């Protein structure tokens, strides 16, 4: 069981190549981290996996437990078990957070079957408590007027409610103070299990102090250029990404 990315190539609509043959396997039960400098294609990878229409896949495959997801619509991929925690979550005016998450859960049920409202709110409140989110967030419009930290917590709340098999967290640590980071990490760690896989995309090692990865990969120019254990993140923290230049000239 894994989220398997093989030789993935993608371009912008104007043909600019962004991903140039990404190979990565995230088996269930493991946490992988991708690090890399700005512009290396980290965020693009997350968007291509979730089906963003601004990118064109020009080669390779992404399979979820053996099933090709590149042929699926955006919403189908989500229901199949891929979750993207956004770096910049959209604001959706007039749609309450509670109704939004409920609609996402409802979309996973067969036609004619409805969410049990009482159980839903009980579950929602429990997860909000764990993320130290005020109850007023249920009635507020999705992400509208939320602070950066509140938006990221809201992403993790959705992750916890939807219980996806594979989660991709795109720069979830950006814009978070240390307390908010700890809370977000608490949520993610609570979801770690033998039947779930995680991909953390981050610029800094700091996040990995709170969500310990099993493997660390370095991305550069649209490819994974190095892979290693958690110690690789520490090494990068010390040496920076300068070695990438050597790789490029070698």
């Amino acid at each position, binding site marked *: 069981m894994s989220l398997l990315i093989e030789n993935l190539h993608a371009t912008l609509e104007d043909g600019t190549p962004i991903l140039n043959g990404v190979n990565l396997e995230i088996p269930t039960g493991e946490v992988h981290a991708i690090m890399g400098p700005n512009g290396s294609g980290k965020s693009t990878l997350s968007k291509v996996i979730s089906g963003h229409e601004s990118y064109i896949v020009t080669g390779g495959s992404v399979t979820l437990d053996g099933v090709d997801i590149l042929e699926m*619509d955006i*919403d189908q991929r989500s229901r199949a078990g891929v979750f993207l925690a956004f770096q910049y979550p*959209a604001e*959706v005016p007039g*749609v309450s957070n509670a109704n*939004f*998450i409920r*609609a*996402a859960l409802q979309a996973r049920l067969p036609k004619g079957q409805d969410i049990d409202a009482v159980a839903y709110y009980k579950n929602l409140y429990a997860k909000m408590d764990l993320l130290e989110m005020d109850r007023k967030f249920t009635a507020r419009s999705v992400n509208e007027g939320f602070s950066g930290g509140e938006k990221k917590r809201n992403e993790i709340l959705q992750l916890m409610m*939807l219980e996806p098999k594979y989660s991709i967290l795109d720069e979830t640590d950006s814009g978070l103070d240390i307390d908010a980071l700890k809370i977000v990490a608490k949520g993610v760690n609570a979801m770690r299990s033998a039947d779930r896989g995680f991909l953390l995309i981050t610029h800094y090692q700091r996040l990995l102090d709170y969500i310990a990865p099993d493997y660390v990969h370095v991305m550069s120019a649209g490819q994974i250029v190095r892979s290693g254990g958690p110690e690789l993140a520490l090494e990068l923290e010390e040496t920076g990404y300068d070695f990438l230049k050597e790789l490029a000239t070698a």
Partner: protein
Amino acid sequence: MPTAISQPSILTEAPRTSAVFPAWFARTQEAAWTSFQQTAAPKRGDEPWRFSSLKELDFSATTRAEFLGEASELIQRSKGLEQFSAKFVFVNDGFALAINHLPKSVICMPLAEALLSHSELVEQYFMRHPATLGSKKFTDLHTAHLSNGMFIHVPAGVVVEHPIEIFHWVQGQHQATFPHTLIVAGEKAQVRVIETFQSINERDATWTIAVNDLIAEKAANLQYSVVQALNTESKIISVNASEISASAVATSFQLHTGAAWARSESICRLLGEESRSYMFAVSVPSHDQEYDLRTFQHHVSPGAYSDLLYKNSLYDESRTIFSGLIFVDEGAHRTDAYQTCRNLLMSNACEANSMPGLEINADDVKCSHGSTSSQISEEEIFYLRARGIHSDTARQLIARGFSIEVISRLAHEASETYILRMLDEKFATLKS
């Protein structure tokens, strides 16, 4: 060459004022009929009818609606709020039901009854100002033919706890109704009224020419909401005006989901210091529905506030016209006035026309107006779909949210719940 009059219609039949109505009312109807006949019909090039589909204004085969005796089923179908202070049901302008839990001092009754029992009070407030946004001819027609409606008078200091509900049901091919709603909130009085227009069947092409006047006396708070959910064969012209005295607040809210063609003219007159007007509208036209919305925020007094927010979500080949003017009289200093119309274009074939306007004749004034038209942002759609929500549902959630932003401005949960239910009935018929 004179045209032969082939059949009776509301254009040719003189008023039939009931013999029991007071003399002043008969005179008013007669005068309105004369004025109607003397007033030219709107024509191409008339500014108040710019962008309008004038061909819709065809009454030639239209006769006055006949009252239907049996209304028990319609009373069942008149489902509004769980808690109300009073509930009235009309069928083709005929009075069908009254439930009244109001304090004894509140006058709340069909207009036909009020004309008998409170003639002087009705006369004091009835049609005080002619329509100024283009439909004078049609409000004359309304006045000439009207036979019923509602009269609500909340005396000074009385706070009505729950909303008063009014349901209008219409039926009859080429038949017309002329409902008139007159609401007066006395000094420091508070009242909410919700009026709903619906068709009895989906088939009959009816005409409704409605007038509603809101009078908020000193420090009163009057909230009026109207839900227009007629069948898609029918047409409606509605003219709404509020007069707002010092420190009073008047809110007028419209929801348009029905009718083939609807023209709405809404005016507020701010007559005293610290008077406040809120004008809200939510419209969700689809197929080839056309909504023509005209507004006028008239700052007569200095130190008054007005805010207008109209939102249209346009589906299929529907069309909207918004024309709004903030008018600040000479001497109306310290005016604070806002006007916003936003269009959400849900198809490539819809058409939204906006004509916002300002005319300021005073100093030290804060005014802004704006109008936007846009499609749903790709970013919002992607976000919802990335949570597994189907594309159609996602688009509808966003369009609903766009409307909810206005509805929530009513700040009254029970009213909002009812209006949302009526809005959701429309959304249930739409494919995104």
